[in-house]
């Protein structure tokens, strides 16, 4: 990751969402982007130019644009039409963003478009976040990473976020993932946790 002092940045064409610049580098604001927050509070996965990324819950393409600055290609899945309009605009200016308007709970609708990827990044406001991640890991290469941004309030507002967190970790481990890192994103984002898993080299072992 590229840091200028203690500021996380990415290198690419600016002006996507009026982000502040540091010289010619785009500031990647942790209060705004959960992934940026993750790099501040945890270790994260080093983004490198060879990475192919599947991004679930792409929204307006804010974080997507930063990930695209670091990686080879980003398959950006978003379901809602309003943010999709913005995402398409980002894709027009960034040749390595592939916008897909589809429901992340139904990978069968976009499977013919998405190649095998090195990283699945998921940030969706859905109750069944673990199962969405597991279903989308058909696209993940063995040894590839899953970054799950767990919105505990979307899973169940009545439940204690800590319990939701533990249940999600358990579900991911039962599905064969090895949890590598898990942290809460406070103080940047409340009741959000980030979980990094690795897909086993040979499935089923």
């Amino acid at each position, binding site marked *: 990751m590229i840091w200028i002092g203690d500021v996380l940045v990415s290198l690419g064409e600016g002006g996507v969402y009026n982000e502040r610049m540091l010289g010619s580098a785009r500031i990647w604001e942790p209060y705004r982007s959960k992934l940026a927050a993750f790099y501040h509070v945890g270790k994260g996965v080093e983004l490198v130019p060879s990475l192919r990324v599947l991004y679930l819950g792409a929204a307006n393409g804010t974080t997507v644009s930063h990930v695209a600055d670091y990686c080879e290609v980003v398959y950006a899945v978003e379901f809602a039409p309003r943010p999709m309009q913005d995402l398409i605009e980002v894709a027009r200016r960034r040749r390595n963003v592939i916008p897909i308007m589809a429901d992340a709970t139904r*990978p*069968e609708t976009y*499977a*013919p478009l*998405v*190649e*095998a990827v090195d990283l699945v990044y998921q940030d969706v406001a859905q109750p069944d976040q673990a199962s969405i991640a597991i279903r989308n890991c058909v696209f993940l290469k063995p040894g590839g990473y899953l970054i799950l941004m767990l919105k505990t309030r979307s899973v169940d507002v009545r439940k204690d976020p800590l319990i939701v967190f533990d249940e999600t970790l358990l579900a991911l481990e039962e599905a064969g993932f090895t949890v590598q890192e898990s942290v809460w994103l406070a103080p940047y984002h409340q009741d959000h946790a980030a979980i990094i898993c690795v897909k086993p080299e040979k499935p089923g072992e």
Partner: protein
Amino acid sequence: MQSYWFGDVSEGRCSPVAVDIVAIVNRVLSLSTQMDAFIPPDWQQAVSCGVCSDRADYLVRLQEVCITAAERSVREHYAGKDAELLQMVRTLDEMDTVINLLSERAADWYMVRHPAFSRKYRRTPSHILVRTIREKSRGALGKVAGEIEQLAETRTALAKEVSARANDVMPNTSALIGGLVAARLMAHAGGLLPLSRLPASAIQVLGARTALFSHLKTHTPSPKHGIIFQHRRVHNAPRDLRGRVARVLAGKLAIAARLDYFRGITAPEFLEQAQNSIDTAGKGNGL
């Protein structure tokens, strides 16, 4: 065989589909993949298919297809008759908020200029007060009051349009509860399709989010009604019957929303029967 956006791959051999982008997009949007036997596409297969020359070209072609497909999906989503109605209702509700806020502020400002003025014991409706402020105030305050009146006029016109549009888009729901409230229900659900998929119990408490969550979390009494309280048959019902009327009405609304989405025309028989049961519920004798 695996079907990908660029063609079908079977036993290592790739047969390309159309070259034309519209045809490719049509195919992509219609494909449904069996996930248990799925193998992700490989750009080299696309090269052997003759669809692209190298990796960079693969991504350029794929992006073109995906942008075209996404643009079409967005357009189709907005083509529904409810899409604009939804924006109209939300604008209407936000205008109400703005008008109220500005009126309160203008009144406070006016009271500073007229220390002896008070609204107590005066039953002056807010719009009359705003008119008085406009007539009696110089400078910006008078202009602000004038703007509030303009806004209120636009709001009235918009409300009529919302009502008329709702009668057209959701005839059955509107017949039961009135165009305005029907449109508000639709807007809260996020569209006509989501509304038609809601169970009656959810329709009953749409718009009572705070009360519902406080009930779920801390066992306060459950809300009896949300937006549907705005309908006269709910708020005019005797207090002890309101819950019942709201429940029966919500049940009929759930059916009406489904009729509206799937049929799109009035169902007179259903409406008559529904009106009867709602009336019966409001009279307090058994159902």
